[in-house]
């Protein structure tokens, strides 16, 4: 068990005094207690035992189903390889520690194959059943199948790979024999419009469908229309590379499918045909049949699909602009926004969530999108009064921008919706580096101060009805919607008046046909009328915001 901090011991004392928590712990329903100082989980003994047992169980299953278990470091060098069957072959030998997979003497992989594999592991992809061939010390051919998955540490940094290996020299024919008969499959291929051929393991065309045979070879697409018995891979290799098609890339992908390293290879390329420039999609999949058939190749014309993709791409670009719904973020120059966006995390704020309590340290700052956050001042624990309202025009946690790390007010989510948040430390760092962010936030804190002072004066001098109209108009501006859901109790808290005061004011506004009100659902019927019914404070603050934004 990890050493517990004094804060943790304190917490234990508190938990044992809380009846519900104590009951849950005593009845064995709790797995772990978190150390409030570090966040480390301290597992209770029963959970520790159960997890150790389940790990042992998983470990023994892995041992049963594989011959070796290996690990790589982050440079892809073997750090360990353990297994029950240590034989003197290229794999499973202790001498592989410190070497990379592609340094070992496997003879079925070309440089292109290794390049593809290296590229996959550099992108931290999981790979399954990579088949490798080598010879043991006696000169006999051995086949191995490797599977691996990337390993990351707690912070998400790449640590290396771990995986298993099996020797499959004796298994390969048996696995092949269990596949279904191919007669029906070959017949069905003729009915398809796409050009399809079947290759054997050396890349020779052993079957082609009607569309393939009908395809005029003059159209200049490498290999299509090739007669049975010719080597498709050789044609691809010889085609070389030009600006629209790379024959060796096609060949490399198909070889991987033949070798069982990929279940699917797709490659899109262009062709100049008598009817204009066309695009084709090549798809290669392993062939599930008996006999020599190894891979199915299909070519489909992708010109129309490409056009559709292009228009989708434009839609996508348009859509990508929308998430920057927060105006502080939207006002940043693109370069600085890009730096900032690494530290931004989208969150969904729910009505009633408390983002800060007065005096609490600020852990995150929030940039509301379509959510709405109220700043509340609390008097004598039970009375609250709203002093500020923050929507997409601002940021919650402005104290941090002014160098104070705790919030003087409660921040309460008043409108459910999306926001971006940033961790406090990161925010302070970004603020130092970004003059635009500084400018936007200083400007915004000025506006917020104006809002505070105006609200203070308003609460003292204006009637409930005018204040309610002001507050509804402000809410409307920030959520950009004429309908929202608020209860009398909630509005009474916001405006610091008794519930009955809200009921009377809301009834008056309803009688004047400015709003409709039904079980907490508020609909603004006459926006201009409501603005006019609001006290002058609404326009003072709105003009300030509008003026400074320009």
């Amino acid at each position, binding site marked *: 068990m990890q050493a517990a901090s004094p804060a943790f011991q304190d*917490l234990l004392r508190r938990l044992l005094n809380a009846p*519900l928590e104590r009951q849950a712990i005593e009845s064995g329903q*709790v797995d772990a207690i*978190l150390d409030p100082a570090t966040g480390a989980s301290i597992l209770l003994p029963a959970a520790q035992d159960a997890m150790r047992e389940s790990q042992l169980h998983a470990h023994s299953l892995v041992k049963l189903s594989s011959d070796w278990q290996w690990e790589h470091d982050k440079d892809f060098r073997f750090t360990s390889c353990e297994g029950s069957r240590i034989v003197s072959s290229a794999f499973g030998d202790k001498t592989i520690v410190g070497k990379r997979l592609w340094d070992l003497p496997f003879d079925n992989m070309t440089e292109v194959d290794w390049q593809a594999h290296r590229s996959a592991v550099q992108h931290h992809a999981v790979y399954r059943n990579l088949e490798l061939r080598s010879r043991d010390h006696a000169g006999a051919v051995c086949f191995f199948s490797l599977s691996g998955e990337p390993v990351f540490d707690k912070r998400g940094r790449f640590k290396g790979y771990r995986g298993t290996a099996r020797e499959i020299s004796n298994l390969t024919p048996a696995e092949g024999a269990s596949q279904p008969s191919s007669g029906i499959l070959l017949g069905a291929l003729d009915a398809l419009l796409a050009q399809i051929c079947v290759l054997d393991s050396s890349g020779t065309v052993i079957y082609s469908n009607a569309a393939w045979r009908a395809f005029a070879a003059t159209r200049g697409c490498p290999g299509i229309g090739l007669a049975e018995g010719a080597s498709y891979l050789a044609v691809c290799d010889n085609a070389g590379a030009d600006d629209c098609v790379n024959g060796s890339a096609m060949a490399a992908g198909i070889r991987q499918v033949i070798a069982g390293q990929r279940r699917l290879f797709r490659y899109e390329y262009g062709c100049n045909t008598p009817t204009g420039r066309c695009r084709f999609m090549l798809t290669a999949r392993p062939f599930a049949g008996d006999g020599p058939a190894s891979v199915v190749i299909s070519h489909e014309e992708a010109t129309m699909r490409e056009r559709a993709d292009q228009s989708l791409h434009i839609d996508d670009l348009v859509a990508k602009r929308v998430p920057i719904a927060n105006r502080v973020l939207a006002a940043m120059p693109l370069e600085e926004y890009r730096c900032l966006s690494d530290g931004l995390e989208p969150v969904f704020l729910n*009505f*009633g969530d408390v983002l800060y309590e007065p005096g609490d340290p600020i852990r995150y700052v929030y940039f509301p999108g379509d959510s709405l956050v109220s700043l509340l001042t609390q008097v004598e624990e039970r009375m609250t009064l709203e002093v500020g309202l923050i929507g997409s025009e601002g940021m919650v946690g402005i104290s941090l921008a002014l160098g104070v790390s705790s919030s003087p007010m409660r921040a309460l989510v008043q*409108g459910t919706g999306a926001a971006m948040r940033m961790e406090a430390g990161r925010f302070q760092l970004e603020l130092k580096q970004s003059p635009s962010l500084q400018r936007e936030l200083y400007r915004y804190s000025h506006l917020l101060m104006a809002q505070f002072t105006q609200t203070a004066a308003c609460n003292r001098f204006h009637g409930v009805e005018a204040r309610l109209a002001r507050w509804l108009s402000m809410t409307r501006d920030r959520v950009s919607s004429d309908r929202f859901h608020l209860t009398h109790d909630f509005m009474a808290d916001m405006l610091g008046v008794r519930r009955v005061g809200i009921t009377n004011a809301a009834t008056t506004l309803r009688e004047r046909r400015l709003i409709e009100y039904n079980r907490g659902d508020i609909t603004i019927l006459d926006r201009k009328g409501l603005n006019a019914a609001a006290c002058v404070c609404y326009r003072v603050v709105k003009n300030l915001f509008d003026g400074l934004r320009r």
Partner: protein
Amino acid sequence: MQRKRTKVRASSPGVETVVVMRLYISGNAPNSMRAIANLEAICQEYLKDAYKLEVVDVFEQPARALADGILVTPSLAKMAPTPVASIVGNLSDRSSVLLALGIDGKDR
């Protein structure tokens, strides 16, 4: 536990029908696994599609659990509709889970 009980007396949420919950667990520890199974059964029976459940593994996201004021696992926090509530344990006591989620068992 700042989120556990807010003093705001609002009784209805912005989105009225959807129950938003977060379940904090410790990897595949036995009570955590049981809590997921128990909660899924309750949601299927009483809430159908009207819920959002996020499962937070404190092994992977300890900072988040602390930020949310979570001190033991498994813990279930109901974030919406208000009042927010939380419940500790493997959620095998169905009646107390229903109470915390504000579901009237007879209604549905």
